Each structure stands twice: as C-alpha cells, then as structure tokens.
C-alpha cells in the first residue's frame, strides 16, 4: 500500500516509459487483486461470510481514491455475471453506501445506466439481473422503496403499450414478477397498497393475454400428471402463493440481515425516472416457453421434499440451475460439479432437480439452448461424479419419459431417442429391456415400440449388429433392425431377368479396371429408355431411368465398404451423375435407386444424401419431393427420413445465411471505400501490413466493386427464391397428405386421430420449430398461399401456433 502511495506522489504519470510501465503493471496487479477478491467473495472460505464482507468493504473503501471506476465497474458487473450471488453484492454495496454516501449514489447511477444499456442492447437476462440487483439494493437501504416501485410501475406501463409485440410486453411483466421474490417482503412491509396495485395491474394484463403459442411449446400434449404451464402463468401462480405466505421464502440467502443495524442508518438514493427504450423492429425479445415438469414429491425417495410446482422455491432453484448450466457449459466436468454443489442442496432432492432442469433444456421448444450432446455429456459426467444416486434417478427419469411418450411432441421424441442411444453407448448398452415387454403387444407405429425401434437403430450406429442380436431379449426380435447391408439386385437371384443386368456386370468390370466417366457413359449407352420424350407431357428434358438405375446401384454397391469408399465413388463419377440427371425428376430417380440399394442402412442413406447435396448432384427441392413421394410411404414415419429432410433444409439455410453475410460484408467494405478516398488505399498498398489486414477483413482481399456487390445481391435473391420454394414444396405436401387423410376419415366415418396422423402432424410442427428463424421470413407468403382460412383447422392451428411465437 505504501509503495503505491509513493508512486502516486511522484506525479507525472505519463512520464518516463520505464517508470510508467512499472507503475502500470503495479496498478494492474492491484486492480487484478481487487477484482479477484470481489469475484471470489462468498466462495469457500474458512471465515464467515460476514467477516469476509466486512474485510473486503474496508479494503475497497480505502482503495476508492485510486480505483473508483474500476470498483464501480466490477461491482456492477458481478451481480449480472453471477446472478446467484446477487444478495452478497447488494450487501457489499449497502455497507459501502453506509460508509460513503457519495459512492452509493455513484453506484446507483452506474447500475441504472447498466440496466438501461442492457435494455437498449436487447440483453434481456442482463437487464433482468440488473433490475433484480436494484431491487435488492432496497433491502440494503441503498435505494428508496418509492423509487423502485416507480420503476416497476413504469415497466408495467411498457407492458401495456399498444402496437408492440406481445413478446416485448411479456418480457416486461416477467422481469417485474421475477424480481419480486427478492424485494416482495420489503415492499409488503413498507408499501403494501402500492405493491397490491402493481399486482392488480399485472393480473389484468395476464388475463387479457393470448396464449396461442402454448401448445406448440409443450413437451406433452396432455396435462396429466403434471400440467405444462406457460411460463408467465406459472410464475404468476408462484408469486400469488408467495403473497399468501406473506412474501417469505426460504431459498434466497440474505447476508444483509446480519448487518441490519449498520444498514438501517444509511441514507437512501432515488432511482431516477426510467423510460424503457421504445420498441424498434430490430429488437428481438425472448420467446415464450413452457415450464417443464417431470417430477413431484411422490417420485422422490424419503428425505428432503421437492417443493411444489407453485412454490417460489421451485422457480428459484430452477433458475439457479439453468444459470449454472449457462455459465459452465464449456466444461462438462465443472458443470456437473457445480450443479452438485448447489448451495441449497441439502434441503432438496438435488439429483431430481438437476435431472429435471437438464431435460427441460434438452426438450426446450422450439430448439434447445445448446448442443444436444452438451446435455448428454453433462449427464454422463453427473453419473460419474455421483455414482450412487445419479444413474438411478436418470433411469427413473427415462422410465417416466417412456411411460409418457404417447403424448410427447415429435421434436422431443427425436431428442429423447438421440440422447438415450448416446447415453446407452456410454454404459455398455445396459438396460432392463424386459421391463418394457408390455409394449411389444402394441402396433409397431405406436410411440412406445417405435421409440425402442428407433433407439435400437441409433444404438446400432454406435455399435454393431451382432451385439444387439445377442443382447436383446427374445421377444424384441421384431424390433431389431435388419443387418445394414446393401441389396444389389443385379447379383441377386432372378437378376438374369432384369433388363439392366448385363450392362451392370460390364460396368462393374469397367469400374474395377479404373475406367473414367466417359467410359461409364459409353457402357450405359446400350440401355433402352423406357420413357420416350413423348411419354412425358412435361417440357423437361427426358432422362433414362434405367441408365440411372444401373449406374447408381452398381456404383454405390462397389463403394459399399464404407462411407469414404462411397464418397470417393461419387466424386470420381460426378460427371456421370450430372450427365444422367439434369432435371429434378431425374435427381429423384437417383434418390430412389440409392434407397433401393441401401434400404436397410439408414445412416448410409443419410450421409449419401448429404454428400449428393454437397456436390450438387441433387438439389434440396428434389430431396424434399422424394421424401413425400409414393415410394417412401412405408418409410414416412421413420426418424431417419426426417433426419434427411432437416439436413436438407439446414443446407439451404446455411447457403442463404452465408450469401447474406458475404453480401453484407462486401457492402460494408464498399461503403468504407467510398468514405475513405484514394489516399487511404495508397497507404494500404504501401504498408507492410496490407496483406495481413486484407486477410483479417476476410475473403476476397480486394475491395468489391459496385458491380460485384450487385451480383452478390442477385445471387442472394436467387437463393431466397430457392429457399422459399423449398419451404413451399414441403408445406404443400404436408397439407396435401394431411387434408387427404382428414377428408377420408371423415367420409369413412373413422377417427382421424391415428398414429400416422400424430406422427405426420408432429413432423409438420417439427419443420416449423426446428427452422423457425428461416421459416419466419416467409410467414406472410405461407399465410396467403398455403395456410389459408379454408384449410382444416387441425392443420391451420399448427401454423397459427408457430406465428404466435413471436407475436
């Protein structure tokens, strides 16, 4: 400390370089030390939190002279970065304010600015944590009750604005409600009527609110045994329960209570009047969600009791666990350890809470926050860290999910299959399959046998066929997939009668002798075309299906040894594919033949379609049409077919995103070039860093000309057209088959609600959900062309639920 003073005294901070460097580094060291102290406060320590806080506050106070802005910054950062430690930091600020009123004022100002900036930048969680912190400062006598109420009121005003998206209004109410557990008691004691008034206004808002989106976001379509509540409804119920309990809760640690005598002496500041930044079209708000529940206290063994669904503790615990996942998602082991170290762990059935929260994230609609494998690997890590409890709870969770799978939405069904197969592959595929025997009596299309079948298919991809033949109980034979081998018809019994056999055999020899693309086309020339140009009334160029048949099946069979062999074969004879299949119809023909050969190897089909798309042998629209084609009817409810459709849509989306990013970059570069005239460009050319800088600014090095940018714009426009067409094809096919089904059931007097119907409507929903960002662009086109009001309400409803997500 003394040494630092000495430096301060010798004046000229910006003087001699050497001295400066030393001083800077010492200052830096000190700042870093302060930062560490502040960041770490409240973590494991031998002394009490109270004495730690007192000690730290006196250090900070004495350092205020030198590090004022640094301290302000860190102290306002911490409660946002570590929201779970909110009350520790509010206590600190309270103690600082009691000692130094000016600092308290500056801090409030700083925090208010942080809050406003977060709102402007659409950092909604940061804004919520900042608001929570401001509210908690009321508990520490830093901020006046009145001015907080005024702020909360103005936020409810924002929720009542007209002509703004509902998601914006929802967020403002959510922010207020989620703040009340911290400050409700204080407001209740000091300003009961104002608090009541606030709650009445919120209730009025909630009663008027539409919840069209609700069904699209549910994991299960039925509410038994646990209701799938809309998030604001659930939080409102929890807050009402909290009010019933006179605003007392048992989850939030409140270190400031120990300092009451000091804090109550302090003077308070007022939050200035804050007007939430008005809505702009560029603002994106959090989408609504459904609160995921899979356990209640009856599921847990004797011991600490799981708080009820409408207890505020449940909300607080869940929020805490979600934020641990967010913070530690990069390191699965740290994440597992931190989840298991939840401060409140001895008072709740922790493993159940953790598993519920992880599945809540995995099943989150429309898409999970993070990669699915991130959650899977955290669950594996949890099993490692807590081998006595975690695997059992996870098995129980799996059992519950399986029992409720009949009403699970299709997106979640897929994620469940993917997770479970992955999890099993990490635990020697050990599972008590016998417990699920009863489902063997059900129809194969029923979600339960379907689940087992799909899980086995995915497990097979991780393992090998014989293993499952040995491992599975006898009764499951009908669910075990066939061995994933190619069916090459030209070498099977009866091949002699096929028209292409002779050519196929010659082709095999030619390819084995390393012939080139031209040779292949020559070999195929003998094959007659069953469909003449006159056959097709379409104006498209005719193609020869037999040529495609012989070529595709023979080539892929020759490359059947592995993915790499297949890819190499496709690349080598790329030109042949292109020559044989110019039109979409011909491309679909390629896909049919690929399917015929590889019908029992789903993963192979997935990667081959992916490859054919990448090397532009088939177009996205061809794949989509093929998925809905007559030949694929038998495959229509199988997961792999949808894996293919979604990867196709993703390819298209990536293409559009890439083009639009490139164009924006080029436009920016162009704008900059226009601004900075010739002198700069000369500088750049002369500078030795030119090369580097060019690299940094990515891509084409040279500045784009207007012409180039125009061309990029055209390309992007064309890509948008393709993308729109792809979505139109997909949705139109869905509408066709679903309408047909509904009409037919109606005329036959049968129940329309069959397994097939559920899978198909579920897949339609999945397309909307998984690609919601891209589909959204075409909402109005879809509404005017396809999802028109004369459509069956069952189908139309799916569309309306989707548009309600961002309403």
């Amino acid at each position, binding site marked *: 400390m003394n040494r630092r003073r000495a430096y301060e005294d010798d004046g000229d901070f910006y003087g001699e370089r050497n001295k400066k460097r030393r001083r800077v580094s010492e200052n830096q060291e000190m700042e870093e030390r302060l930062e560490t102290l502040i960041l770490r406060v409240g973590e494991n320590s031998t002394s009490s939190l109270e004495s730690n806080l007192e000690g730290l506050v006196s250090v900070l106070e004495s350092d205020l002279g030198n590090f004022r802005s640094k301290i302000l910054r860190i102290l306002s950062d911490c409660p946002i970065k570590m929201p779970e430690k909110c009350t520790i930091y509010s206590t600190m600020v309270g103690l600082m304010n009691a000692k130094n009123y000016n600092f308290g004022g500056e801090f409030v100002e700083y925090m208010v600015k942080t809050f406003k900036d977060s709102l402007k930048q659409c950092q909604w969680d940061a804004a919520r944590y900042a608001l929570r912190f401001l509210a908690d400062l009321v508990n520490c006598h830093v901020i006046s009750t009145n001015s907080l109420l005024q702020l909360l009121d103005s936020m409810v005003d924002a929720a009542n604005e007209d002509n703004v998206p509902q998601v914006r209004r929802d967020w403002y109410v959510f922010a207020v409600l989620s703040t009340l557990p911290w400050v409700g008691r204080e407001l209740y004691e000091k300003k009961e009527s104002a608090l009541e008034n606030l709650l009445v206004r919120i209730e009025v808002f909630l009663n008027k609110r539409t919840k069209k989106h609700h069904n699209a976001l549910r994991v299960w379509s039925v509410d038994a045994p646990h209701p799938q509540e809309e998030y604001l409804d659930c939080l409102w119920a929890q807050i009402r329960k909290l009010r019933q309990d006179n605003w007392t809760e048992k989850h939030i640690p409140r270190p400031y209570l120990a300092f009451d005598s000091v804090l109550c002496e302090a003077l308070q500041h007022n939050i200035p009047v804050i007007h939430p930044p008005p809505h702009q079209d560029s603002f994106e708000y959090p989408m609504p969600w459904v609160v995921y529940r899979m356990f209640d206290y009856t599921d847990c063994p004797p011991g600490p009791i799981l708080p009820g669904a409408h207890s505020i503790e449940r909300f607080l615990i869940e929020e805490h666990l979600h934020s641990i996942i967010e913070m530690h998602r990069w*390191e699965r082991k740290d994440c597992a350890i931190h989840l298991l170290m939840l401060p409140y762990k001895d008072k709740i059935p922790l493993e159940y809470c953790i598993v519920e929260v992880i599945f809540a994230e995995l099943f989150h609609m429309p898409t999970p926050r993070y990669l699915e494998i*991130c959650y899977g690997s955290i669950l594996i890590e949890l099993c490692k860290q807590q081998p006595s409890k975690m695997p059992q709870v996870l098995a129980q969770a799996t059992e519950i999910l399986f029992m409720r799978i009949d009403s699970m939405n299709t997106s979640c069904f897929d994620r469940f299959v993917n997770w479970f197969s992955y999890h099993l592959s990490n635990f*020697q595929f050990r599972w008590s399959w016998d417990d699920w025997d009863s489902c063997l009596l059900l129809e194969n299309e029923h979600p339960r046998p379907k689940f087992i079948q799909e899980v086995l298919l995915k497990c097979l991809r991780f393992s090998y066929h014989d293993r499952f033949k040995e491992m599975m109980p006898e009764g499951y034979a009908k669910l075990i997939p066939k061995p994933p081998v190619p069916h090459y018809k030209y070498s099977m019994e009866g091949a002699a009668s096929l028209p292409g056999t002779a050519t196929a055999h010659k082709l095999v020899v030619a390819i084995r002798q390393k012939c080139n693309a031209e040779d292949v086309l020559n070999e195929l020339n003998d094959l007659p075309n069953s469909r003449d140009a006159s056959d097709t009334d379409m104006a498209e160029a005719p193609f020869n299906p037999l040529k495609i048949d012989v070529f595709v099946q023979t080539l892929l069979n020759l490359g059947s040894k592995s993915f790499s062999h297949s890819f190499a074969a496709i690349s080598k004879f790329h030109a042949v594919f292109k020559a044989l299949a110019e039109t979409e119809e011909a491309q679909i023909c390629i896909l049919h033949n690929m399917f015929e050969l590889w019908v029992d190897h789903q993963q192979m089909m997935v990667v081959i379609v992916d490859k054919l798309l990448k090397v532009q042998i088939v177009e996205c629209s061809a794949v989509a049409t093929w998925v809905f084609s007559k030949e694929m009817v038998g495959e229509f409810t199988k997961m792999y077919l949808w894996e293919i459709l979604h990867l196709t849509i993703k390819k298209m989306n990536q293409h559009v995103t890439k083009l639009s990013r490139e164009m924006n970059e080029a436009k920016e570069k162009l704008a900059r070039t226009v601004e900075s005239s010739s002198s700069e460009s000369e500088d750049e050319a002369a500078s030795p860093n030119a090369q580097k800088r060019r690299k940094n600014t990515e891509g084409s090095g040279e500045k784009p000309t207007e012409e180039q940018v125009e061309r990029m714009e055209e390309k992007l426009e064309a890509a948008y057209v393709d993308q729109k067409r792809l979505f139109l094809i997909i949705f139109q096919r869905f509408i066709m088959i679903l309408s047909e089904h509904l009409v037919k059931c109606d005329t036959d007097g049968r129940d329309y609600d069959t397994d097939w119907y559920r899978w198909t409507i579920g897949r339609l929903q999945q397309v909307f959900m998984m690609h919601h960002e891209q589909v959204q662009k075409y909402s109005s086109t879809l509404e005017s062309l396809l999802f028109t009001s004369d459509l069956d309400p069952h189908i139309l409803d799916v569309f309306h639920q989707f548009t309600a997500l961002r309403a």
Partner: protein
Amino acid sequence: MSSQIQSVHTPSVSLSKYRDQHFKGSRHEQEKLLRVSSTLYVGNLSFYTTEEQIHELFSRCGDVRRIIMGLDKFKKTPCGFCFVEYYSRLDAESAMRYINGTRLDDRIVRVDWDAGFIEGRQYGRGKTGGQVRDEYRQDHDLGRGGYGKMVQMGQLGAPSMRE
C-alpha cells in the same frame, strides 16, 4: 441461440502437451496451426471400430467434412486411431469439450487437436506397422490386438511374468 458465434477459450479446448514430431516446420508454426485447426486426432479406438461409428458420434457436434481412418502401414487395416475433419473450428471445439474422454465402442476415446491431415499420416508409425504405443504396451487389450507387439514377440515379458 444454439449457434455460438465466438470461440470461448477454456481448458478443454486448449492444446495438449503432445506435439507431432514429424511436423514439417517450427514448433511455433505448428502451434499456430493447432490453434485454428478444425481437424482432430482421435485415439484409443478399438481396431474394430468403423468409420460409420465414429461418424455417428462426431456428427453430433457438427457437420463432418471427412474421416480418415488410421491404418496399419503394412496390413492396411484399422490400427486404432483416426482423423476427424470438421468444416468449422467451433464444431471441432465442441467435440473436444463433449466427446473427449467419453466412450465409443466401450472405450474412452482421446480427442486432440491436429494441425491438419497430410497424405501418409494415416499410417501407423510403429516398426510393425501399427501405432507406436501398441509396440510397448504391456497390458492385454482385446480391442487392440491383445498384448503389445513387443510382448507378443517375446522381447518384453508379459506383466504377470515380471511381477
């Protein structure tokens, strides 16, 4: 929200101590490449693990560009390692975070950064054609051809005999 734009540096994606001794270039150049690479080395595979199995696991972290199976120099059969190339660095980082140290075919796989595949690197570098570690290994590992090659050739005692 699922697309992370920026790479976040945490221990599981930092460079390991291993450096390929056959790298053509300076240590500095090698490390520079490793830091931007989207290629991974995957080790401790069973000789029986196929490209298909590896693809299923690694594609869960992102789009896989290609997989190059490690082969015995002489027999041209898999010898327990491979390279996995992603299109994007971030996907490769996810594999480092979420796959490294988990199981494939009942074995804990090791995933590490690789500076990029060069033809020839798919072959084992041991004298007997496989990976060097399989020459000196003293345990019995059914997935990797039983005892290490030296033990098999009687140049090293099996562990039970030494004890």
